[in-house]
């Protein structure tokens, strides 16, 4: 009796452990799959079942193009790497022991090397040799890192293969090439195939190397998803990821459970049998390969052909334009736009600095514009070519002088504030009145209810403004005081987050959160569509806040400056600025566009506050490396405390 119950218990724990492991491995994927069917954009609220994200995915040209690029690059790089790697493996295999060992070592290094080193060195090499970054460079980079994997998978097979079979084929009258393909190749085919598959998956997976070697206007899935991080990954990406996962799963199941012809080694013998029969599959494979190669030639030709005078290279934040605006611009001007995305100012800066891709129009934020101008990376705009500048409210040009003193480098595109978002119902429950200023974030009744921004300058801005200092302060005393204040606040803070402010506020997890005003319209619409039993309100703190401005600039190395000016002028046209506002929902500095908006928007003081409310607010300035380091050191102290 004891024995059996002990065995049962043991069995139970074994199963329990197994289930735990499975949950650990698959729960994240399950969550993603569920969210791909969630009609709400929120990551924590279930808004009902929908397939709209799937529709959106298939309708989205950038996603489909990125998918196409990803698959094409994966297939081509794997194919070419397989040919090169197999040839190299054959060469190495016939070497003597010492050189073979040396070559194998040399072959292994790139695989162990960190991706970021490979990526940067490839990028540097391409730039050094004047190869413009684009489809070709991604392909070359992927071939480079794939070759060792193919060699690694082919070599053991070659070593198992008797060298005499090749000689036997020659002896029986086959020429060297025919002997290889008829006799050696079928023997090493399993190794070649697994090398190909490994290369294919490595290429699909890669982000870092692609990120460094890609050029304007080309994205793979990984770089596309990355560029969307700032504004939150769209649920259509969950849909795409779900589809990819399901496809891979199906392939796996197919290869593992397909009826094996010979019992053992099903895939190998099946592959051999197919190859041997040389039936229609072989021709199909050849035909498909041919089509793909032709497709690539056509695409690269198009890429090359596109390199003509009527061109414009645009570098912008992800999700920061209504895509039909680009089409309208192309239609009206006949200029072909290559549109590229970045995720942070810090990511954009080195690209421009290195001249890896020569962009014509870029949209950085305030302090970064100052930094670029100070480092001579910007070209003065010829405002004669931008008559629509008169549509921009002079207030914002004045504000821009904070980072562009002569108004010579930039044209404002969007702007906004940073403020406090609060949950009215939650505050009522806690018995606290609505916040009016930053000082309320030190109210002890908010214990565990506060969400702060997880970024140095934003966090210090809150403290500096509370203390009545400038948020561009470089005074060590003022900054020490701000640090002490933030440390004092830390026990009250629920979390330091970036994107999750939206989700946490929507799910009612926190009472107040520091947030960018650009998120407001989306949040309020979402709260309404979810039918939440609370409302989210926004306040611009009375101590003053950060006014941020994203503006268009032209880099010093732009090749199509006039086209860039046409582009900026086009974006300043009221009807276009209105389209963009309705898509991005970030406040527009365009007076003409503002007048075209629905009254509902015009009267939304959270999005369009009165100028008087902003008297004490400032725009971020670039403070120099030394100050940046000092801020970071203090911030680390706070986070570590």
């Amino acid at each position, binding site marked *: 009796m004891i024995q059996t119950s002990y065995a049962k218990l043991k069995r139970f724990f074994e199963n329990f452990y197994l289930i735990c492991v499975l949950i650990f491995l698959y729960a994240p994927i399950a969550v993603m799959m569920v969210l791909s069917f969630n009609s709400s954009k929120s990551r924590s609220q279930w808004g009902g079942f929908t397939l709209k994200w799937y529709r959106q995915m298939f309708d989205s040209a950038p996603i489909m193009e990125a998918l196409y690029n990803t698959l094409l690059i994966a297939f081509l790089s794997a194919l070419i790497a397989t040919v090169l790697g197999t040839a190299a493996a054959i060469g190495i295999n016939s070497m003597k022991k010492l050189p073979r060992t040396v070559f194998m070592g040399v072959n292994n290094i790139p695989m162990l090397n960190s991706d970021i080193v490979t990526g940067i060195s490839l990028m540097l090499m391409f730039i050094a040799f004047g190869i413009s970054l684009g489809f070709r460079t991604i392909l070359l980079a992927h071939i480079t890192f794939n070759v060792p994997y193919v060699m690694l998978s082919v070599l053991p097979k070659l070593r198992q293969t*008797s060298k*005499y*079979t090749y*000689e*036997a*084929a*020659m*002896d*029986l*009258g*086959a*020429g*060297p090439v*025919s*002997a290889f393909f*008829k*006799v050696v190749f*079928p*023997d090493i085919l399993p190794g070649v195939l697994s090398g190909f598959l490994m290369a294919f998956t490595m290429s699909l997976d890669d982000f870092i190397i692609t990120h460094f070697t890609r050029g304007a206007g080309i994205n793979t899935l990984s770089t596309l998803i990355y560029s969307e991080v700032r504004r939150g990954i769209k649920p259509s990406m969950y849909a795409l990821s779900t589809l990819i996962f399901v496809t891979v799963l199906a392939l796996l199941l197919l290869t593992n459970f397909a009826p094996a012809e010979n019992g053992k080694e099903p895939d190998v013998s099946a592959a*051999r049998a197919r*190859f*041997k029969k040389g039936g229609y599959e072989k021709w199909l494979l050849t035909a498909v390969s041919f089509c793909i190669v032709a497709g690539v030639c056509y695409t690269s030709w198009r890429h090359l052909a596109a390199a003509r005078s009527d061109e414009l290279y645009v570098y912008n934040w992800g999700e920061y334009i209504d895509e039909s605006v680009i089409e309208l611009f192309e239609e009206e001007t006949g200029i072909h736009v290559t549109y590229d995305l970045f995720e942070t100012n810090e990511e954009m800066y080195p690209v421009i600095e290195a001249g890896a891709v020569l962009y014509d129009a870029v949209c950085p934020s305030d302090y970064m514009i100052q930094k670029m101008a100070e480092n001579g990376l910007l070209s003065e705009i010829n405002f004669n070519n931008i008559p629509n500048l008169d549509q921009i409210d002079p207030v914002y040009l004045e504000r821009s002088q904070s980072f562009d003193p002569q108004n010579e480098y930039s044209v404002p595109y969007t702007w906004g504030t940073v403020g406090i978002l609060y949950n009215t119902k939650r505050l009522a429950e806690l018995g606290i009145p609505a916040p009016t200023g930053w000082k309320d974030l030190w109210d002890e009744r908010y214990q565990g209810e506060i969400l702060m921004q997880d970024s140095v300058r934003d966090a210090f801005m809150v403290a500096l403004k509370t203390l009545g200092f400038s948020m561009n302060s470089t005074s060590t005393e003022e900054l020490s005081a701000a640090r002490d204040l933030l440390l004092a606040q830390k026990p009250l803070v629920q979390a330091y987050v970036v994107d999750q402010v939206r989700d946490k506020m929507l799910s009612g997890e926190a009472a107040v959160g520091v947030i960018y005003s650009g998120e407001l319209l989306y949040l309020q619409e979402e709260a309404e569509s979810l039918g939440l039993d609370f409302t989210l309100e926004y306040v611009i703190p009375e101590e003053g806040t950060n006014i941020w401005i994203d503006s268009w600039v032209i880099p010093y190395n732009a090749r199509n400056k006039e086209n860039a000016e046409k582009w900026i002028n086009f974006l300043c046209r009221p009807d276009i600025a209105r389209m963009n506002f309705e898509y991005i929902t970030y406040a527009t500095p365009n007076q003409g566009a503002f007048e075209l908006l629905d009254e509902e928007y015009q009267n939304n003081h959270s999005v369009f506050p009165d100028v008087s409310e902003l008297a004490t607010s400032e725009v971020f300035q670039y403070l120099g490396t030394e100050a940046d380091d000092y801020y970071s050191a203090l911030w680390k102290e706070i986070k570590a405390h």
Partner: protein
Amino acid sequence: MNQPLIDLVNISKSFDGELILDDLNLSVKENSFVTLLGPSGCGKTTTLRIIGGFVSPDQGRVIFGGEDITRMPPNKRQLNTVFQKYALFTHMNIAENIAFGLKIKGKSKDYIRDKIKYALKLVNLDGFENRSVDSLSGGQQQRIAIARAIVNEPRLLLLDEPLGALDLKLRQDMQYELIRLKNELGITFIYVTHDQEEALTMSDTIVVMNQGYIQQMGTPEQIYNEPENAFVADFIGESNIVDGIMLRDELVEIFGARFACVDKGFGQRTPVDVVIRPEDIDLVKPDDGTLTGVVTHLIFKGVHYEMEVTTDGGFEWLVHSTDMFPVGQEVGIHVDPFDIQIMNKPASEDEEAVGVNE
């Protein structure tokens, strides 16, 4: 019929600075069964690979049927090889293996089918067409390798230690099979082995090689009975090789005793090597022998007894006899004149018979 089919002329080859073949000359007649015999590293396989076209010689020419084929790639040569490890194509079935050469030559389907049937019959494996290579035993695989070679109707078949991987019984069976095949097909065989028994059983001509040189070439009887030097004598069968002095024609002195022999032309008082096969030594009463000694070792071998007889001067004679003499018995040694083989001492270092490796 007895024209030379293949001539190797002044062939030299070295690998990594090591001389494998040194100025080798060999002529093989049409329709003969020639065996290249020697210890490993003697150059026999290299010679075969030069004929097959897998190795090109540093110097010299290969003449095949009157044509210089030294630089001709293997796939153009009218000969086929049976490889040591069979080298069958494991991703093909038996019929496809055999058909390989014929398909490349563009033969018709009917022709190929007939040929496969004929070849399988020839190697006693009828009905094996659709079997996989893995399902065959070593001996069967070897037959397929032979079948695959001979369907191409080569004028010359090269066999590189084809029986090396088989067990003893199978090896003996296959030896007879090969002789039968050779007689039925009427093609020339060049056979490489390190097994002297195999060489003696099958060949018309044996070429004994060592260290890149041909030591002796002749019929199996000549090689066995009249080895030309100590290496050949030692390598082929078992031998007693002793220092002797040729006193005059037909008289040799060994360990101070005088033996009558049949060899002439060595001059007078010439130091020579004397070879006496163990089975050619007659053990007699001490008084009747030319030399006397004591039996120091005795082993029963089935067909005969193997004994060691130590004579004055400490030399141990190997003796095979159906008569048994117990250990410790004093015996006399007698050898008939025609059983004594006289050889010149090696003229140079290179020809010196060195330790046999196998």
